[in-house]
């Protein structure tokens, strides 16, 4: 081990940070992501806690959830819109968060690419499936025993 001065002390001063203008006009994509995490987070608090309160705390809670319960909620556009907003905000927020974690923990380029491909595919499937579930729902589907369907 030599005790000569290390190379790092001979390096020049660090380069000046780039100015905001140097990155081009408008919001940087990562800045939009950062803002979206916070905005969606604030909205999701009411949406998710409201969802949990209505579905788990009112009446018999989890015990009363079945096909008829869902039909009752989705007969009302209010709950359709509630669930749609919750679906999109939670899935995009969660996917953007998972993207951060992949960037942080997957160090090989190929691993990162593979994980992100899986993440985007899964997110796309969830958004399409969840949206269709709400809007193609048929309370009188074959096998339904709801009284409104026998009229």
């Amino acid at each position: 081990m030599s005790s000569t001065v290390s190379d790092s002390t001979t390096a020049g001063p660090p380069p000046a940070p780039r100015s905001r203008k140097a990155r081009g006009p408008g919001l940087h994509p990562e800045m939009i992501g950062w803002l979206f995490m916070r905005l969606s987070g604030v909205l999701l608090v009411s949406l998710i806690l409201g969802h949990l309160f209505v579905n788990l705390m009112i009446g018999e809670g989890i015990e009363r959830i079945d096909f008829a319960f869902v039909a009752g909620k989705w007969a009302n556009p209010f709950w359709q819109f509630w669930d749609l907003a919750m679906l999109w905000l939670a899935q995009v927020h969660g996917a953007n968060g998972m993207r951060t974690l992949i960037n942080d923990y997957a160090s090989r380029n190929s691993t990162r690419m593979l994980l992100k491909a899986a993440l985007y595919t899964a997110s796309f499937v969830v958004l399409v499936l969840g949206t269709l579930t709400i809007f193609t729902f048929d309370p009188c589907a074959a096998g339904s025993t709801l009284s409104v369907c026998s009229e």
Partner: protein
Amino acid sequence: MPSALPSAPAGTLYRGRDGMWTWVAHRITGVMLFFFLFAHVIDTALVNVSPEAYNTALETYKTPVVALMEVGLVAGVLFHAFNGLRVVAVDFWSQGPRYQRHMSVAVVVIWVALFVPFVVRHLMNAF
């Protein structure tokens, strides 16, 4: 020869303080919610397969073991939600950084205040 140099940094292992642990917990609960949502959208989609398929799936949600997993899920949701609000307040509220430690305490207090009644009611419903 500076043989007195320690072979490894002693006592400098970064363990962080409360700020680091809330950050770790925020990540873990975020990942947990992400995977739950994936399963949850698929189980909800069963309403369009058939009423029986959905009702059968929902029966498992009412079993004691799954009811306990729901308790864990809600514990995570409550932490992620209120700690997330704390992060937003630190970033956007001019006094946020100054009071961030107070807000960490508030997160724990709100968590207990909502979680305890939830557990009592949910387990009474499920058992």
